[in-house]
């Protein structure tokens, strides 16, 4: 007890030194005054008493000093000495400090960003109450095991009668035309993702509205109420965060909806790898939100509803599934026609819903896997590098430490000094890593695929990972800094001047075996990362190096969805005609037409064509990409006509069916013949006959996954589409042209919002963005790893140059040329680098094998990758070794000999 109190008193004295000083002054004063009083009482004259008291007390300053000393000022003084000593050491070895700072800074920062990105895809729970209690309910074909989504009637039965869940809700979604009236009277519109949900959706999730209210049971009836809940982002962006947004009116697909509330910040719906909804509407409004899909509010044995439920207390997923499966069998018995073989599957939905039957976007999954692998590899490389850097100093420090120990410095004291030093050395690196926080936002666009609706992964920075990486790397610095102290403690005074000449190979001052091993494995790891990155980049861009086949310059695109607006085919075609007629009259416009999909749209469409006697086909048909276009689309899209003619307004519904094909499609269907005038059938031999009227050059419509540019262009008037992209070739500026086009559309239908307005060049860039996110991650890690590994190699060579200065001096004195010195010193470093490279290449080949499935048309042993990566690395190795070695080559022999 009293020991503790004593400790407390000491601690107080250390951390509140001014308190201790004040107390001391008061005590001294009290003592002297008491003594003076005492002396006066004894009869000493007042004038003498003070002097006598002071004499009896002794040297005030001396006592004060010895108290301060005892109090722990000494502890601080020592610390100050340690810090000063460490700073001096850092100033003497700026290279070491820079290397540690770069290693830690890059590692902490990049790991924080990348892992945050991966984390938000794979592991972040949906921001609702107890997300671990959520589960998804899918139908499961009891014969094939395939999972699917629910029909409305089955869902209602499950909700009301199965007892499997504490609460259960359903959702389905799609794009809608959203128009927000502005105060000025005009309106701003866009195509956005809408989620159609059952009225209890938010209450099952346990989400609280940021503003207003969510749906209630009163919103349930079929044909329900035109209410809408906004996402937090939509509220911020489209309603300028209006606090009185509840009650405001907006238009969805032309119909008025009233805003009831705003979803909580960060809530992006329940889709794990899907679009972020901007609006939620009650399921009763489905006929307006999805005019093209009637009958969604009925049906059994499968449908369009994703179902999410909250587990009952005490139920786990297995038990819930057992109960649900029981109920599914009851439904099967009751409705054998629709529900035969319809079982269920219950899956945890903590991080969101995902139909396991739908293949996950491979790029995202691959990016994530790469991210995790990269993160771990970078962490390893960081630690290895810090070890290399610290061990590099061990040899030179061992002597210094031995001397200090023999002079009576205690081991604890020494340890503390090394600790202070390593913490100081780590500080700037940690700071640099933290500064990466500012990079997270600007980097996000490169990591997030561009799709027609917002998808995203939220804040990409993960503080926990940054903290983790930071802590691990500081621990590494500290750990390896203490090695010399431990070693010195063991071997006492051995590392003396015994090998002062520094000659020979057994002097223990060449890079240690551990250090060599570390450098080699670091290089191997970064080579593997680089190869993965390169394979990834190559597979994404292999096909992109060729020309696009169309001219993207001086073109703008802008899309409309008239189907959502309730247009039928007649009205839709009339609208398209009106738009084209008016747009072609706008100033500067050279050509305009419709296309869907337009080049570098994210969607694509296909068509099956039958040709008599088609080679290499089981049933005489092949699949081709299809684009549904307006008349005179060839100049509008900037395609090149090879033969035949463009579509004209006369290629109408009443005429015989026509199509224009790409070179590749023509060659596939009729090898070696001119395709003009030849005939194919849609779908099969019994399908409608279609005549080729033109052939255009192959064009690239998508960045990813397009293995064949076989494409058929079909006239809108014969194959109607209600979602089209207007492509305008213009001499005017894109901004002015788009404004003019918007005016034309607003004049024709003020409640129809055009969306996706951009230049064709932007569209092309966006098309590549999806793959770019994976490429960005891969390249990030590859380059980062390489950089760090190079720092390590540089450090090793630089270190050995310093350590062998005397040896080199002797060699120079004995006639070795500077060239010889250079070669001599480079040999060691280069050997390490090359061994690492060899191991890395082997590992890279193995990794490439496992990536085979996702490399689009690329051999895992891609020769370019396996030539470029090693050559690039060889250059890096050379630079990392030449730079420090050159310094040695310039040595003055005499100075070098005196260097110790």
């Amino acid at each position, binding site marked *: *007890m*009293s020991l503790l109190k004593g400790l407390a008193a000491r601690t107080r004295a250390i951390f509140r030194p001014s308190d201790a000083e004040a107390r001391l002054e008061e*005590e001294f004063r009290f*003592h002297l005054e008491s003594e003076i009083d005492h002396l006066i009482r004894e009869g000493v004259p007042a004038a003498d008493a003070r002097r006598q008291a002071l004499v009896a*007390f002794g040297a005030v300053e001396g006592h004060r000093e010895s108290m301060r000393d005892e109090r722990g000022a000494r502890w601080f003084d020592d610390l100050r000495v340690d810090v000063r000593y460490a700073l001096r050491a850092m100033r003497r070895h700026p290279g070491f400090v820079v290397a540690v700072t770069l290693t830690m800074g890059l590692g902490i920062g990049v790991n924080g960003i990348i892992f945050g990105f991966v984390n938000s895809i794979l592991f972040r729970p949906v921001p609702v109450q107890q997300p671990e209690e959520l589960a998804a309910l899918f139908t499961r074909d009891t014969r094939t095991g395939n999972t699917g989504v629910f029909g409305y009637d089955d869902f209602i039965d499950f909700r009301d009668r199965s007892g499997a869940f504490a609460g259960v809700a359903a959702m389905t979604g799609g794009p809608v035309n959203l128009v927000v009236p502005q105060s000025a009277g005009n309106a701003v519109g866009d195509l956005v993702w809408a989620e159609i949900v059952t009225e209890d959706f938010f209450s099952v999730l346990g989400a609280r509205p940021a503003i207003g209210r969510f749906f209630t049971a009163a919103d349930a009836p079929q044909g329900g109420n035109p209410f809408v809940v906004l996402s937090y982002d939509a509220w911020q962006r489209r309603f300028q965060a209006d606090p009185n947004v509840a009650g405001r009116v907006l238009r969805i697909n032309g119909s008025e909806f009233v805003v009831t509330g705003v979803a909580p910040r960060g809530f992006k719906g329940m889709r794990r790898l899907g679009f972020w909804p901007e609006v939620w509407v009650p399921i009763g409004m489905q006929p307006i939100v999805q005019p093209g899909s009637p009958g969604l509010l009925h049906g059994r044995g499968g449908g369009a509803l994703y179902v999410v439920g909250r587990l009952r207390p005490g139920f786990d997923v297995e038990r819930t599934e057992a109960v649900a499966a029981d109920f599914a069998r009851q439904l099967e018995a009751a409705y054998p026609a629709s529900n035969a073989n319809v079982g269920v599957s219950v899956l945890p939905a903590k991080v969101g819903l995902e139909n396991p039957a739908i293949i996950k976007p491979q790029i995202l999954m691959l990016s994530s896997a790469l991210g995790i692998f990269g993160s771990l590899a970078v962490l390893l490389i960081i630690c290895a590098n810090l070890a290399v850097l610290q061990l590099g100093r061990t040899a030179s420090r061992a002597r210094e430490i031995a001397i*200090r120990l023999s*002079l*009576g410095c205690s081991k604890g*004291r020494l340890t503390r000094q090394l600790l202070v030093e390593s913490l100081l050395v780590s500080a700037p690196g940690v700071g640099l890593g933290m500064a990466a926080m500012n990079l997270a936002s600007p980097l996000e666009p490169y990591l997030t695929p561009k799709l027609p609706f917002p998808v995203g992964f939220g804040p990409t920075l993960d503080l926990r990972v940054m903290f983790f990486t930071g802590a691990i790397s500081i621990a590494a610095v500290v750990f390896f800094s203490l090695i010399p102290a431990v070693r010195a403690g063991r071997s006492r005074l051995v590392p003396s001047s015994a090998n002062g000449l520094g000659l020979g190979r057994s002097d223990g001052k060449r890079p240690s075996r551990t250090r060599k091993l570390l450098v080699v494995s670091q290089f191997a790891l970064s080579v593997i990362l680089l190869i993965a990155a390169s394979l990834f980049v190559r597979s994404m861009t292999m096909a992109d190096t060729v020309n696009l086949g169309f001219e993207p310059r001086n073109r703008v695109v802008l899309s409309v969805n008239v189907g959502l607006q309730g247009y039928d085919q007649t009205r839709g075609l009339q609208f398209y005609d009106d738009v084209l007629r008016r747009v072609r009259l706008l100033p500067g416009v050279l050509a305009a037409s419709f296309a869907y999909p337009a080049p570098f749209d994210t969607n694509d469409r296909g068509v099956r064509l039958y040709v008599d006697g088609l080679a290499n086909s089981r049933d005489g048909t092949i699949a081709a990409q299809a684009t549904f276009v307006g008349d005179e689309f060839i100049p509008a899209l900037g395609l090149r006509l090879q033969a035949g003619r463009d579509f004209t307004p006369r290629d109408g519904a009443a005429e015989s069916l026509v199509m224009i094909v790409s070179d590749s499609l023509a060659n596939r269907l009729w090898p070696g013949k001119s395709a003009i005038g030849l005939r194919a059938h849609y779908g099969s031999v019994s399908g409608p006959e279609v005549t080729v009227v033109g052939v255009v050059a192959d064009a690239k419509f998508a960045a990813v996954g397009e293995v064949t540019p076989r494409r058929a262009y079909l006239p809108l008037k014969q194959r109607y589409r209600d979602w089209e992209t207007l492509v305008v070739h213009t001499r005017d500026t894109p901004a002015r042209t788009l404004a003019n086009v918007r005016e034309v559309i607003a004049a024709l239908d003020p409640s129809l919002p055009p969306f996706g307005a951009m230049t064709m060049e932007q569209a092309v860039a966006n098309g590549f963005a999806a793959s770019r996110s994976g490429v960005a991650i891969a390249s990030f890690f590859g380059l980062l790893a390489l950089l760090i590994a190079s720092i390590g190699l540089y450090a090793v060579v630089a270190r050995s140059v310093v350590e062998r200065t005397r040896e080199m001096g002797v060699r120079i004195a004995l006639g070795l040329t500077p060239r010889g010195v250079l070669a001599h010193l480079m040999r060691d470093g280069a050997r390490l680098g090359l061994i690492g490279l060899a191991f890395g290449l082997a590992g890279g080949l193995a990794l490439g094998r496992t990536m085979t499935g996702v490399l689009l048309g690329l051999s895992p042993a891609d020769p370019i990758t396996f030539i470029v990566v090693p050559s690039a690395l060889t250059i890096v190795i050379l630079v990392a070794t030449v730079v420090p070695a050159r310094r040695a080559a310039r040595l003055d022999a005499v100075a070098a000999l005196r260097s110790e």
Partner: protein
Amino acid sequence: MPGHRTAEPDPLRGSIDLLILKALSLEAMHGWGIGARIQQMSRGRLDVNQGSLYPALQRLEHRGDIESAWRTTENNRRARFYTITARGRRELGEELEKWKRFSKTISLIVEG
């Protein structure tokens, strides 16, 4: 590089500690009082440098042998009063034993 401080207290330091603990074993006192008591107990024969009491007091407090707190004296003045702790009493007992043995040994040698 300053050498490591030795753990063994020098004889004077040790005896001051002993005297302080002895003085405080009777009652709580302030610094001047302790000095006066030591003088009185030694019947004026031991002339300790008064100021050197204070580093010793601080050391004893940090060691947990004594405690201190502000109190008012009979003259109504604020002073720091020191109290011996249980640990301090144990320490005093052991030190006294040691001291007695030590002085006996010395007497044996010197007088013998």
